[in-house]
């Protein structure tokens, strides 16, 4: 979600004048069964120590997590930055609720399957200096987790709830969305580091 929206300079009432608050959902309920199915698949893979499934979940989940983050930050974000305020609001109200479900699900799938995969393949027992690559991956994930959980997800939800008000405060929304801009560099760097580390681990 880094840099997803960019700057949103709008008057305090501009957002409210362009949006029907009853159309703003925070969590798309229709997506919950898909999330449940994905998590159930993860549980089955972990419980059964099913190598193919663990690898699939980790590669697919991690690839989607990194790909979505970079694509949204580098492509979607700049595009939105050049859209009109009403267009940005319209896009955000449809896009952000889906991200509320998608990103935490991908993170859980990737991390849980990754830990299991590392144990199963013996990667956790790799001696130093190669073990530093694993430690680096833990640190990278830790940094992303702190930023995502402590800064971005709260901002995401706060913006959605603000948009639900009859007259949303555009200045507040812009202020909250600036978090994505400020953290875009860090999260982008972490995602690229993830790609480097994972490809290194896969080929050592």
């Amino acid at each position, binding site marked *: 979600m880094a840099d997803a929206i960019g700057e949103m300079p709008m008057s305090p009432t501009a957002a409210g004048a362009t949006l029907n608050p009853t159309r703003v959902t925070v969590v798309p309920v229709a997506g919950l069964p898909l999330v449940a199915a994905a998590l159930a698949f993860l549980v089955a893979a972990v419980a059964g120590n099913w190598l193919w499934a663990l690898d699939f979940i980790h590669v697919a989940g991690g690839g989607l997590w990194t790909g979505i983050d970079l694509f949204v930050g580098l492509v979607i974000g700049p595009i939105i930055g050049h859209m009109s305020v009403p267009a940005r609001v319209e896009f955000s109200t449809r896009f952000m609720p889906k991200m509320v479900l998608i990103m935490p699900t991908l993170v859980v799938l990737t991390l*849980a399957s990754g830990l299991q995969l590392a*144990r199963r393949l013996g990667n956790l027992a790799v001696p130093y200096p190669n073990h530093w690559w694993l430690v680096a991956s833990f640190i990278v994930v830790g940094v992303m987790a702190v930023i995502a959980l402590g800064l971005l997800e709260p901002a995401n939800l706060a913006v959605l709830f603000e948009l639900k008000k009859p007259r949303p405060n555009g200045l507040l929304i812009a202020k909250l969305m600036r978090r994505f801009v400020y953290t875009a560099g860090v999260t982008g760097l972490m995602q690229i580091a993830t790609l480097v580390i994972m490809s290194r681990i896969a080929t050592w």
Partner: protein
Amino acid sequence: MGSIALVIAGGIYLASYLPRQAPLLIPTVLIGLGGGLLLAAVAQLGGLRQFAWERFYQVSGWALVAYAVIAGMIEFVLLVDHTRGTLLILLTVVLVIFALDIPIILGFSVARHQDTPAGIP
């Protein structure tokens, strides 16, 4: 947020020694500090008067359900991997702090910008 950072740091320290057991002093201190910050945050929250409590409970309640599921799944992975003893206890504490902290952050982040019951934002 400091609480999350501290418990994650403790978790990373423990994970970096896997499959061996890490020395437990440093992660215990980190996790203890994280728990302390969480308690301090709860205490500060409890002192608020003009606050959109209904919205806070709505958001943090559902977030607690979601993060309890996430923490439960990670705990399940730990148990399947035969994690035992002090290490399991420490990691469980990390997950509990994690599962409580995030909903509080989310609930507060939303509620602080909502109108209070008296209609004063």
